[in-house]
């Protein structure tokens, strides 16, 4: 041991904690949360075959009793399904989304938001799925590298099933593939750092996955009215979803709050929707154990046929941008 008091303290603290290792479960939970945020941009990376979706549809429809329909005339046969208040609110949102204006015109969709209080603008190329991200910042990256094919294209969204059960099956299949990829990637990173071991499955239920995927997809402004409407139907048939009408988002805008508690991560997932259009106003998550919260407030969505400049710096085209204006 060294002879100077400070050196003794230094060495004592090092040696006394050498056997302490960060619990992998904690790390996995935090990383999973970040992957979820990223996956908002990647609302679908998997194309299900019609056969696979059809098979799943049959199973799900049988389990859920099919999509509830309004009763008409005198009851004949099985009694009419009684909708819960949450389902009723979600079907209203679905109806609103189905007749809403839909995607803004133009090849590029520009969405501004406040993420944890800071300005952020995302531009998505509806043809290629490339994503540009700009941040209102001081001394930090103002522009993130272009995420090539980071989002499904408009055409990919349009090709998705709008039957709720088939859509649920697709979301589930996609989620499980993404989960497998994420675990493989985390294990690769551990190996790169010379750490042994495997990453545990997060212990999520199918309903956890479906809620996650559906709310993630609702975020994407490339999603059209029919698919958006179907996603609300999927949520209406997902156990554990709670709905609060007459809510307000972080900016005081009237909203319908859709929430679900994910037990595996002890986190409340929340999304606030515009009751008139079904558009997303805010997404948030709150960890129940320590109250850590993250919020994304969506401020505006607009379209254009030329790639918008960085709104915070007002500079001309930056790295990774196409050479000139593009038309749809």
């Amino acid at each position, binding site marked *: 041991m060294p002879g100077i008091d400070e050196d003794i*303290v*230094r060495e004592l603290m090092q040696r006394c904690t050498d056997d302490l290792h960060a619990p992998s479960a904690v*790390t996995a939970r935090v*990383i999973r949360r970040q992957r979820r945020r990223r996956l908002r941009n990647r609302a679908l990376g998997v194309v299900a075959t019609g056969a696979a979706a059809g098979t799943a549809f049959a199973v799900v429809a049988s389990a859920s009793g099919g999509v509830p329909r309004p009763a008409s005339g005198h009851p004949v046969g099985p009694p009419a399904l009684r909708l819960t208040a949450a389902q009723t609110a979600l079907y209203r949102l679905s109806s609103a989304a189905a007749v809403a204006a839909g995607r803004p015109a133009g090849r590029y969709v520009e969405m501004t938001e406040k993420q944890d209080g800071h300005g952020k603008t995302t531009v998505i190329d509806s043809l290629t799925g490339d994503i540009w991200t700009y941040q209102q910042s001081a001394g930090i*990256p103002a522009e993130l590298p272009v995420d090539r094919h*980071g989002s499904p294209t408009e055409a990919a969204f349009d090709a998705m099933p709008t039957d709720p059960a088939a859509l649920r099956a697709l979301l589930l299949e996609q989620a499980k593939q993404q989960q497998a990829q994420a675990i493989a990637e985390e294990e690769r990173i551990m190996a790169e750092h010379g750490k042994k071991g495997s990453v545990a499955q997060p212990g999520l239920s199918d309903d956890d996955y479906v809620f996650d995927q559906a709310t993630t997809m609702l975020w994407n402004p490339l999603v059209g009215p029919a698919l958006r409407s179907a996603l609300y139907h999927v949520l209406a048939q997902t156990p554990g979803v709670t709905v609060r009408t007459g809510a307000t988002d972080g900016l005081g805008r009237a909203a319908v709050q859709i929430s679900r508690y994910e037990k595996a991560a002890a986190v409340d997932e929340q999304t606030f929707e515009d009751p008139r259009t079904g558009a997303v106003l805010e997404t948030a998550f709150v960890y129940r154990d320590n109250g850590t919260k993250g919020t994304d407030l969506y401020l505006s969505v607009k379209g254009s046929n030329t790639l918008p400049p960085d709104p915070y710096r007002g500079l001309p085209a930056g790295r990774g941008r196409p050479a000139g204006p593009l038309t749809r």
Partner: protein
Amino acid sequence: MDSKQVRAFEGFVTESGDALLRMATLLTSDPDAAEDIYQETLQRLATRWSRVGNPRAFCRRVMHNIVIDRARAQQRRPRELLTIRDSGDPRSGDLVTAVELRPALLAGLGALTSQQRAIVVLRYFEDMSENEVADLLGISVGTVKSTASRAVAQLRVQPGLIALFATTDTPGTN
């Protein structure tokens, strides 16, 4: 976060997680609380990842803030006493002995004020300079020096650690 940032975050946590947990343990002198603080720190880092230039520095500051907040919240509660037992000669330097010393070290750190503890941990565990500690905590370099000195003096007389420091009082020994 884009995919590259997620990978960078994962790489940082994989590389620095152990060190962060150890720092949290020393800052709190409570292994259970340390795990909570470690998780909360990572969560805060994750939500701001793309805005953080130096993640390690960010974590240090966040941990310190959380510890201060918790200390304020717990001021009314009596401090739990840690059981300390004599671990024999701590100068042997082997890991088992060092681990056995942990209760005494944590008890010693726990007897310090939050600021003393932060300064000792940042200065001697994180190997930050006096200027860096002063910047991080928003205090003067002189305060860092004097506080560190008083804190180390207090640790010298902590039961279970006295023998460890005894050699420095004996001329001709290291």
